[in-house]
């Protein structure tokens, strides 16, 4: 123990925090632009240098602890990890299917998570870029700026997120890092008082979500040249869909749709993901590059998330969101949309769907009563796949006879989108890099492209500022041409 703080007046409330050089760059997006001999951007590398190592924490721990522990991976989408782990471990405890009450409580929790996360992603994190422009001053380009300039939009965005969190609190026990989903079922019912409070606001949330979709459509209509082309990289799309082809964010089978719209693979059982997908490793990033095994790494990479899901399903099983899906699909020439900014449009359609699902589920008596747990013969392993807010999330566990996790594998949404994000950054850099010096404008554009897929690289540090970013340019011989660091 060191004593340097022991002379402070109130030393019992002081905590020693060591900041080493590595933790100081945590949360920075690190990008390298590699130039060819002509000085053009040949390749862009988005480096993920934070090593989370959660799989190693989990191995050797009792399986019943996992859904609670593993959700600490993320502060934005903990519910997705909580539920994916519980779904995987349902197989281990032989609880397939779980009871109607457990299934509906978990679904309600999940759609609450989709609603709150999509509201956060769009209103708090992305809307400042879209409403004020990529080059607007940082002091304005944040949620506080949105509140000042567009109070109604901000109020509804904050309200939608708050409602989603209340759905989570009512089902999971807490707004963040709840403990309700357990292997084999759920440990609580929905309290009638919570149900009534949520029902009182459910129609308003559907209306606000409709307004959010309309807002994104207005933005697209106002500047189609930007929204349709910025960072666009055509690729296959992967997501879960229900057996009848409907959008289902909680459960289903994997479908892969080619960039031209053809369904390439369908009804792939989610527990066969290890045969279906291979993860390539590159030496400059901790994040792997998954691809569809039999298509190879060049042709087999894909995008996941709202843009994939809205275009992969045959229909959305709630009427308002389905009408918006049709409008989305009919946009432009009717082909698939691949532009990163179209993610936000798809995201708002999903938010509307989540609001409709929540409103329609709330009166269900299975939520407030009924058997919560199921059990059956033990199995040694289980795979849980769920559509997290940012895309397909895979949890896979092997559990020993002694109840300890022997091995686990987690493939998160950001990993699936790794290749697409790298290519989007390259696309943006090719368009906007002058071949010599990095500008603030280029850094802003790189940031916007990354954020369309995922806000998690900068996580909480961006909420009221700008994404910390380090961009390095290297010439064909590897020499550093320019480097720009922007702090949080």
């Amino acid at each position, binding site marked *: *123990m*060191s004593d340097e703080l022991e002379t402070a007046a109130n*030393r*019992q*409330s*002081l*905590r*020693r925090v060591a900041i080493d050089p590595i933790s100081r760059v945590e949360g920075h997006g690190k990008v390298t632009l590699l130039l060819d001999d002509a000085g053009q951007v040949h390749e862009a590398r988005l480096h993920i240098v934070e090593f989370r190592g959660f799989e190693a924490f989990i191995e*050797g*721990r*009792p399986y*019943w*602890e996992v*859904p*609670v*522990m593993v959700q*600490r991976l993320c502060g934005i989408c903990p519910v997705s990890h909580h539920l994916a782990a519980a779904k995987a471990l349902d197989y281990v*405890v032989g609880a397939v299917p779980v009871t109607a009450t457990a299934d509906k409580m978990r679904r309600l929790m999940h759609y609450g998570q989709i609603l709150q996360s999509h509201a956060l992603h769009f209103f708090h994190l992305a809307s400042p870029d879209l409403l004020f422009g990529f080059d607007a001053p940082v002091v304005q380009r944040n949620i506080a700026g949105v509140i000042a300039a567009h109070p109604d939009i901000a109020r509804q965005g904050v309200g939608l997120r708050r409602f989603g969190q209340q759905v989570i609190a009512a089902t999971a*026990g*807490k707004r963040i*890092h*709840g*403990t*309700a989903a*357990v*292997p084999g079922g759920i*440990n*609580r019912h929905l309290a009638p008082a919570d149900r009534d409070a949520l029902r009182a606001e459910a129609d308003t949330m559907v209306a606000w979500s409709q307004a959010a979709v309309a807002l994104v459509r207005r933005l697209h209509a106002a500047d189609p040249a930007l929204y349709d082309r910025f960072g666009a990289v055509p690729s296959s799309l992967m997501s879960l869909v229900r057996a009848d082809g409907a959008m289902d964010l909680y459960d289903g089978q994997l479908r892969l749709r080619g960039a031209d719209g053809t369904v390439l693979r369908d009804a792939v059982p989610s527990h066969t993901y290890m045969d279906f997908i291979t993860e390539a490793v590159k030496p400059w990033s901790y994040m792997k590059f998954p691809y569809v095994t039999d298509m190879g790494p060049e042709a087999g990479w894909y995008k996941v998330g709202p843009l994939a899901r809205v275009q992969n399903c045959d229909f959305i099983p709630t009427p308002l969101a389905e009408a918006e899906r049709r409008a989305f699909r009919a946009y432009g020439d009717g082909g698939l949309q691949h532009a990163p900014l179209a993610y936000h449009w798809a995201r708002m359609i999903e938010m509307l769907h989540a609001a409709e699902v929540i409103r329609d589920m709330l009166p269900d008596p299975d939520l407030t009563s009924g058997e919560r*747990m199921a059990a059956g013969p033990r199995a040694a392993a289980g795979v849980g796949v769920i559509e997290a807010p940012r895309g397909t999330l895979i949890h896979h566990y092997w559990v*020993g006879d*002694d*109840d*300890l996790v022997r091995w686990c594998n987690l493939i998160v949404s950001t990993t699936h989108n790794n290749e697409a994000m790298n290519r989007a950054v390259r696309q943006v850099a090719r368009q906007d890099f002058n071949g010599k010096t990095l500008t603030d404008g280029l850094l802003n554009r790189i940031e916007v492209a990354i954020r369309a897929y995922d806000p998690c690289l900068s996580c909480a540090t961006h909420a009221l500022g700008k994404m910390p970013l380090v961009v390095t340019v290297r010439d064909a011989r590897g020499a550093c041409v320019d480097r720009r660091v922007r702090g949080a």
Partner: protein
Amino acid sequence: MSRPTFLLDGQPVAFDDGQMILDAARAAGRYIPHLCWHPDFPPHGSCKLCVVKVAGRHVSACATPARAGAEVESDTPEINAERRTLLQLLFVEGNHFCPACEKSGNCQLQAMAYDLEMTTPRFRHFYPDRPVDASHPEVLLDFNRCIYCELCVRASREQDGKSVFALTGRGIHKHLVVNAESGRLADTDFSAADKAADICPVGVILKKRVGFAVPIGERTYDRAPLHELAMPKTEGKG
């Protein structure tokens, strides 16, 4: 003839000859914090959470006989600060991660930290490497959370007649072991019905496959604070 009394934080507490300060205080409805003390066993004096100040000296209330006219200070800023420091030391010695711990809400160490308003671990964590013992079919041992109160050692030896557990090593190397050649719980005569299986105040001895069946928020110390539930009138209801 009336019983002799001592003053606990200025209030008279009656006691019987030979009674310890903590026993007499409890009998009078006065709480003194404790972790290793248990009504079924003689005083142990290891956790030191029951520290009180008597005649200028800091002593363990569980192991110090009451004396007529003594002035005992317990619920004072000075003594509670000392208890907080002891708790802060316990929290960094083991691996106590309440957010993912299935004992959260039922754990006396956590409840005591809330009670005494401990807000940070303060000291540098040891992060000891203590693998769990999952060999027994019904009970898991997670040594990461052991606070060396020896309640399981004492319960197994004195109530179950088995001596399944023991402390070994000295000083900072002290740790809980299972009394078997292999060191594995499965190779002892331990049973989930033993007294020792239910006595752990923290999250070391755990019934398997229960985990988070009872929601956080509906657990023992979610309902009432430790200083109420640890008193005789409510003890055992949690």
